[in-house]
């Protein structure tokens, strides 16, 4: 038994810093070779398509159509074309506007909501908590038609034009972001000690005072996470945006989807531009994740939803 384990241990212990070597031997879960195989396999599975996005974006369309992985020609032209051809300039501006506003407002509202839900006991509190979880799973396809009808009715009965504007999307994303953002904040605020709030109360702070002066400064990591998730919801949505926007209020997601779909049936599709636009659309999201990775991973597993 130990005969099989020993060579593995000595082989791989070189990687580890000597100080913590024994620690590693105790907690290690896999033999070195198997570990390497898993890591190499999974990294390849992830990185090859990701690398392909970039490689295809600098390749010629014919090259992509012929199935080249490594480009036969190199040009950054696609990155200058996409702003008007895909409509990415308008799309990105709209996406940033709508998703950004959603993030800010949703984070602010979810702090207040979560604060009340965590710190106060009242009738229906658990129902609300359960409702927050349940609402995250309501299928978007179920909601899109009634929301559309509701907004159209707002136009015909109240004279408020919502469909086709960024306002409609903003309100929709805000609402759909709220359950998850609030849940993230609930899990975060639970971890905060009460003592500071109590001290502030003894000093005569009001409810709003406690929220603004004590809770807000303490819960920035949670607020950032819940804001980012709200942002991503708006950024990644195709369903509502495809139904509720006009070309001038289109988000980047819809712009790319429409561009991709319009390439069917023509000559050689403009693959290079599609990939360049994909990369540009993905970049802000990936950068956000990398910056806030530590917090976001905690938020993900706490709420368990993308």
């Amino acid at each position, binding site marked *: 038994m130990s005969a099989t384990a020993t060579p593995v241990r000595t082989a791989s212990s070189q990687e580890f810093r000597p100080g913590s070597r024994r620690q590693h031997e105790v907690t290690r879960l*896999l033999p070195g070779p198997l570990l390497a195989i898993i890591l190499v396999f999974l990294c390849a599975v992830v990185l090859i398509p990701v690398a392909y996005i970039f490689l295809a974006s600098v390749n010629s369309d014919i090259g992509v159509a012929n199935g080249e992985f490594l480009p036969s020609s190199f040009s950054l032209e696609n990155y200058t074309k996409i702003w008007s051809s895909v409509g990415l300039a308008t799309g990105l501006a709209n996406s940033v506007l709508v998703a950004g506003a959603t993030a800010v407002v949703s984070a602010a509202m979810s702090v207040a909501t979560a604060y009340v*839900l965590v710190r106060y*006991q009242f009738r*229906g509190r658990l129902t609300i908590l359960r409702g927050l979880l349940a609402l995250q799973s309501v299928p978007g396809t179920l909601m899109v038609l009634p929301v559309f009808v509701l907004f159209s009715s707002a136009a015909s009965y109240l004279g408020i034009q919502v469909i086709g504007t960024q306002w409609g999307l903003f309100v929709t994303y805000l609402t759909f972001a709220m359950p998850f953002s609030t849940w993230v904040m609930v899990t975060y605020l639970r971890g905060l000690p009460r003592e500071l709030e109590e001290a502030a109360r003894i000093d005569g702070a009001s409810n709003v005072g406690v929220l603004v002066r004590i809770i807000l400064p303490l819960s920035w990591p949670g607020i950032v996470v819940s804001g980012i998730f709200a942002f991503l919801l708006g950024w990644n949505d195709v369903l509502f945006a495809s139904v509720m926007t006009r070309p001038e209020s289109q988000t980047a997601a819809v712009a790319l989807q429409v561009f991709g779909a319009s390439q069917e049936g023509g000559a050689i599709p403009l693959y290079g531009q599609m990939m360049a636009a994909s990369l540009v659309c993905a970049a802000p999201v990936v950068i956000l994740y990398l910056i806030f990775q530590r917090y976001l991973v905690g938020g993900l597993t*706490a709420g*368990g939803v*993308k």
Partner: protein
Amino acid sequence: MSTDSFKDLRTTTGSASGSSKPATPAPTARPRKGEVPRAAPGGSQPPGARRKGLSERNRPLWMLIPGGLLMVVIIVVPLLLGIYMAGLDLDQYTLRRWVSAPFIGVDNFVEALVSSPLLRSVWLSVSYSLIAMVVTLPLGIAAAVATQNAFKGRALIRSVFLIPYVLPSFVVATVWRTMFQPNGVVDSALGTIGIDAGLWLNGPQTYWTLILVQIWASWPFIYLLALSGLQSVDHEVHEASALDGALWWNKLRYVVFPYLKGPLSLAFLIGMLHHINNFTLPFVLFGVPAPADVEVLPILTYVTSFQSFRFGLSAAMAFVSLVLIAIPLFVYLRAVKLDDAETPGGKK
């Protein structure tokens, strides 16, 4: 923090009554602070008397109003509206004046179940979600187990593992759509090893294309939850199994995997909900009208609404998908422990 909540989850699922007990609403506005610490482990809570007075005096429940109002107007009202619309004969002509559209009762449901591809779509949705789930589980667990112990470059690899999950669905779908083009990069790669895979984006194989891309995009979620499960394994357990000289697979099988049961059942439920609800991936990957073999529920509902303009029928289909979603959702809500608010010293 996350690991804590999963410990809670595990204990909650163990005793089924645990979650339902606090669900009974308090009879009056009487704060239940006093009885909660009983459920919470450890008695580090100061006596509740002083705090009880504080929270009873002025609870800022008005702070719930903005969010609550929004959710009622944009989620609850449309939800009810959608259910009502399922009983209307609603098409592009009657939609403008939907209030006065003819009410036809359950006809839409009958049509959806009898003469539409709904049941087939339900089957496609459920089977594709399950297959994708069954494949992502071992991938995610392997990734988590492989990155559990520290090694040089682990942080980088952990970031890499998250990329597929981080990429927006519409980007993932656009990229795979390009790679799966006839004679595209996937075909030429398979061609070099002598495999002619046929069409990926048309015909019966599309079903497997969808599953493949879904797996690629969603295994990191399993990985994340498995990782949080692994982190809850006590060090003593490692030491004990090392002392016993347990082989690595025995250790995994009998010592480590039991810790993953809780997080992974949670991941399974949430993953199923996500897959069944996933609209963007099949929509962007195949476009509409989608090939018949990937006409999953969200796509069918969308096409019925916005391509065939059978809004009433579509609402009925959407209602069926809600019922379908309700099954894993119900299990999920039962399993999640809502109220660990009073757990002292939750760490972040």
